């Protein structure tokens, strides 16, 4: 139970997933800043700018923080374990 809870709170994802999350964060935040500036400038309203920026940020947190299954679709393939050698048996 405790181990399950810890695993849930840790939210591990695989290496491919980490790379994807990194890319999404960078691109989405830059695009979000640019869009919120342009829309706010066009409508002459800072309220619109920061509304778009904060709503987008919250959506992005929901997208990247939980360990969604898509970030775990490339699990690490470990090599098969070697059969025990005679020397290891002796010792």
């Amino acid at each position: 139970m405790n181990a399950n809870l810890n695993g849930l709170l840790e939210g591990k994802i695989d290496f491919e997933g980490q790379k994807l999350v990194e890319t999404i964060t960078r691109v989405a935040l830059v695009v979000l800043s640019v869009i919120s500036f342009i829309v706010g400038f066009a409508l002459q309203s800072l309220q619109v700018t920061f509304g778009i920026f904060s709503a987008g940020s919250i959506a992005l947190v929901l997208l990247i923080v939980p360990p969604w299954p898509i970030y775990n679709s490339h699990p690490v393939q470990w090599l098969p374990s070697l059969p025990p050698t005679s020397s290891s048996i002796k010792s």
Partner: protein
Amino acid sequence: MHSLYARLNNFSAFLSSCLMGLLAAIALSSFLFTAEPKGELTLASVKVFPGSSRRMPTVKQEFTFVNFNISADLTPLFHWNTKQLFVYLQAEYVDSKGVQNDVVLWDSIIRRKQDAVLNIAGRNKYVFRDLSRSFRNAQAANYTLRYNLMPYVGVLTYGEAGRTSEPVPFPEPETVS
């Protein structure tokens, strides 16, 4: 990036950088708005009276009373980064000792665009007196209507929205009967 906290940390770190960039862009965008609205400032009357203040009842000094009319449309100053306008009327004159004086006589804070059309007949809100206690040898004063634009993000900008067409001399003190 492997754990939940690492992803949250990475996100918030880059979020703060983007927010700084956004704020800088907003501050810089204020320089694109270069409206300099002009209004009219006329003086209805300037009178000088001898008297004494409550704080220094024994000291005789002179007080100037200014009645003025302002008509100005300052709505062009309101853009997306304008928080409020501080509008003030200033008397600028060289006093009897040859020192340049700028005295604020009246001011007003405008918070909304729809309040930015000014049609005001007013009198000085703040006591107008000279350090030498007399306006007798002071040179004629220019009266100007100035504004200070306060943005949400960025630098304060100052401007002049009106000025009396020619310097107005201080009249002789009137006698109080």
